[in-house]
């Protein structure tokens, strides 16, 4: 099979579903007030795109997602590194972090609204908190899982700590870090959707909630589809990055 065929085969099933959906809608088997036809959703898409409303909301949501991810991810990564490399740091913070980890971060929504209102901070806080743990836990696991024989080898050859980190420890921890990254990307969208649905004055979640008020079911379905696409986009990006940096890994050699 050619590379193109292999890449496009994954899109065959969604395409079939959409076609069947359209056919069933037109034949009257699916009522328009339950689930609008794909063509109606496409029309809504076109209308919102022309008005600029759609792009603005996508932009707002993406910005929140990425900013929250950057904050939570970098703190999680830094703490994962610190606790993986330093026993003292781990002894001091890991127990606390493991306790906090067991609180579902979405359970904090009422508290977060009390603290921040429905401003940007509330959403950033929730997304950051959500992505923090998968990144933290997997970075820590990755570093602890680095083969001690390789670390000893690096020391024997006179690698200084910085060099040892860049050449042995970080590359060794990378597969686990990527697992955390992909997991965190999923949590990032999930958290944002919930946060925007509950309290927001812009963004995709807000757009969907507004549409619900006015019974614009095509816009609601459109928002859901866009979330799916954005999630897929983030995952594709992570995969691409993984492929590039883990080319040495037997799992990525074809």
């Amino acid at each position, binding site marked *: 099979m050619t590379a193109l065929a292999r890449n496009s085969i994954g899109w065959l099933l969604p395409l079939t579903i959409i076609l069947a959906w359209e056919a069933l809608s037109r034949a009257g088997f699916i009522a328009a007030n339950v689930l609008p036809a794909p063509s109606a959703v496409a029309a809504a898409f076109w209308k919102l795109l022309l008005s600029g409303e759609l792009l603005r909301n996508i932009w707002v949501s993406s910005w929140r997602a990425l900013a929250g991810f950057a904050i939570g991810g970098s703190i999680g990564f830094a703490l994962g590194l610190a606790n993986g490399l330093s026993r003292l740091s781990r002894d001091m913070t890991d127990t606390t972090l493991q306790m906090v980890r067991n609180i579902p971060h979405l359970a904090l929504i009422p508290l977060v609204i009390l603290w921040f209102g429905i401003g940007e901070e509330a959403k950033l806080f929730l997304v950051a908190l959500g992505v923090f743990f998968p990144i933290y836990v997997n970075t820590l696991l990755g570093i602890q899982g680095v083969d001690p024989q390789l670390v*000893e080898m690096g020391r024997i050859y006179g690698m200084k700590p910085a060099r040892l980190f860049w050449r042995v420890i970080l590359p060794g921890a990378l597969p686990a870090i990527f697992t955390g990254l992909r997991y965190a990307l999923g949590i990032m969208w999930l958290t944002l959707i919930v946060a925007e649905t509950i309290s927001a004055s812009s963004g995709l979640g807000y757009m969907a909630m507004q549409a619900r008020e006015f019974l614009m079911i095509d816009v609601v379905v459109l928002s859901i589809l866009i979330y799916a696409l954005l999630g897929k986009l983030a995952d594709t990006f992570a995969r691409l990055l993984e492929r590039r940096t883990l080319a040495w890994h037997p799992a990525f050699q074809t």
Partner: protein
Amino acid sequence: MLDHTFPYPIPASPKVREIPRDVSGPPGFEIRGLVKRFDGKTVLQGVDLVVPRGQFLAIVGKSGCGKSTLLRLLAGLDQPTEGTIRHGDAQTADTRIMFQEPRLLPWARVVDNVTVGLTGIASGKPARERARRRLAEVRLEDRAGEWPSVLSGGQRQRVALARALVGEPRVLALDEPLGALDALTRIEMQGLLERVWRGQGFTAVLVTHDVAEAVVLADRIVVLDEGRIALDVDVPLPRPRRHGTPEVARLESRILSRLLGGDHAERHGQAPVVVRA
């Protein structure tokens, strides 16, 4: 323990052997009164060993006799409890160690794995040039750009050898480097190791449980038993030696019988693990 099977009793503190050759030159390294204890358990109890520069020394012994510990001390990976190790005119940094596992970085190309051996010595293009020359020496120059995961066990160990030698160490410590290889690859590697050693003249210390390997490769064989030197023999056979020749077999069985010791073999009713497969 072993005493009555030996033609001479093991001295409580074995004297340093007189070495007929190279006595004028500086020693490769000199070990005096070496003691190593781990949590109260004494692994090495007073080892004295002078190894002339360029000698190929093999250390054999049962598992747990302290041979790997001795090698780690020599390579500076652990600190002795008592005693000293003097490295001739060189530094500990001039000692490289090779393990049973190749310990290659899976995320670095073969040539970049070899340049690890030049950490702090050279970097960039000159380092890669030197690494490529070493790879040619172990006949892997055409695999320089590959990932270690696609190499066979023997090839990986050859990369590890190139990495150990690229910094031109004075002493190469080998901790059963061929132990995990199949019999044929092993004999090939022995030939390669001998060729490289003769070409460069570093001091080689090979720890092995394979007496035949020791006899084929070494100038001198030291038998360690319970943390002491129990036997120290020269191997005056001409090189290159071949497995299975009568001289090799004779020396091998002599060392084996002393290693096993009548006492030990009788008590267990069979030969212990040191017997070569």
